[in-house]
């Protein structure tokens, strides 16, 4: 299942909210589930909608951006990107573990970087990974992954009947996965441990990993001991 990030935008200027909404629409993969013109309305919305991501203006009368974070509490607060015309709040934003701090007027490059960072963080929290396949950005539940193969500067992700080609190196991609649920079985292959159903020798020194869908993957000598230990499939 692929789901977009659910975001809300909080700013007392309608035009400033629209600027963020328009950039999100261009980037894709983010659904704006609410726009709010005050800190008070934002607090209520964060509690009732539990969005994945909050774009939050700092300088609002009565209840400002930091008061919103304070009211929700650091444990309950979704990732926040502060958006403000003032540069003197950067340290305070760092203090409340903001995901990013964008200055108005918004720089598109910085906005894109903040959004990429947000996608990674949201994916980590939700047990999902970010897939950028042929220009489309979507999320994939990590539970759906079967196996991943290296293809030069790309990785091919196999999930059920589908495969996605993602521009990322194997090493970088491996870092986004939970090491308790995935294992290297070859220089160019990672498998989801939950999908492994067996191990068999095809010749005295060659081994294959069997996945639940019937896929058979080569297990390298170098990775065999570690794999057998983790799956309990050793002889």
């Amino acid at each position, binding site marked *: 299942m692929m789901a977009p990030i659910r975001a809300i935008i909080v700013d*007392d*200027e*309608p*035009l*400033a909210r*629209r*600027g963020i909404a*328009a*950039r999100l629409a*261009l980037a894709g993969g983010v659904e704006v589930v609410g726009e709010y*013109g*005050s800190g008070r*309305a934002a607090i209520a919305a964060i509690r009732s909608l539990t969005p994945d991501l909050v774009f939050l203006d700092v*300088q*609002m*009368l*009565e209840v400002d951006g930091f008061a919103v974070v304070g009211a929700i509490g650091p444990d309950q607060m979704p990732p926040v990107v502060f958006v403000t*015309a*003032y540069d003197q709040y950067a340290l305070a934003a760092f203090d409340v573990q903001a995901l990013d701090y964008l*200055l*108005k*007027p*918004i720089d598109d490059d910085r906005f894109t970087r903040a959004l990429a960072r947000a996608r990674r963080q949201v994916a980590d929290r939700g047990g999902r990974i970010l897939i950028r396949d042929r220009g489309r950005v979507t999320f994939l539940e990590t539970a759906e992954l079967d196996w991943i193969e290296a293809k030069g500067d790309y990785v091919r992700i196999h999930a059920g009947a589908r495969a996605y080609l993602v521009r990322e190196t194997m090493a970088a991609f491996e870092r986004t996965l939970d090491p308790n649920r995935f294992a290297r079985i070859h220089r160019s292959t990672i498998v989801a441990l939950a999908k492994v159903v067996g191990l068999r020798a095809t010749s005295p020194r060659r081994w294959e990993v069997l996945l639940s869908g019937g896929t058979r993957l080569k297990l390298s000598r170098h990775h065999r001991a570690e794999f057998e230990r983790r799956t309990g499939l050793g002889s």
Partner: protein
Amino acid sequence: MGQLFNGAVYNGFALLAWSVLYFWIRYHDAWLTERERSLRAEALAHQARLEALRYQIQPHFLFNTLNAISTLVVERRSEDASRMIARLSDFLRLTLSAPVSDLTPLKDELDFIGRYLEIEQVRFGSKLRVRVDAALDTLGALVPSLILQPLVENAVRHGVGARESGGSIAIEGRRKGDMLSLAISDDGPGIGDAIDGVGWSNTRERLTRLYGEAHRFERTSSPLGTTVVVAWPFATTRR
């Protein structure tokens, strides 16, 4: 002999008189120069102080306006973006280059405020409603340039920014006897115990320097709104 003596006394006296005169003139001359210098220094300090007191553009207003323009660009509303850039340029030209401590007709001041409010109306959309009502006989009255700007900015901030539903701002100009009276009102939730900003104390000092005790600068605030009244002697020609 006696004549010779008399001549010597006379010459001595004349020399003394001339010397006194000479030194007096020199001293007086130096005194005049010194006095002129100190007066000029005082005037310069006064001018510099007035310059510092005059309205200065708020960085956050500039950045927020640029951000609004940036939104219009992303939305490909180029005509609106272009109009906004023109209004912002008008605003910058006047705030950055208007003659310091100069008096300007109320009509020009209101024209300037109108450009500023046009920018704010694009930023806040339907949230900001504006009414300007100046009596005909006040349009030519002289006002310190940009005197209304910080007051109107405050009204926008407290009256409109404070509520999601937005609010209204009214600017009224009346002649009251020999005084020109200007009132800036908003229907916001009132300023409560808000601390006055630099703009507020600067406005007070500027009015004091320009008009001494002959001015009024008052504010009344309630949960139904805030009204600021400024007044000073009515005048229509430049001094």
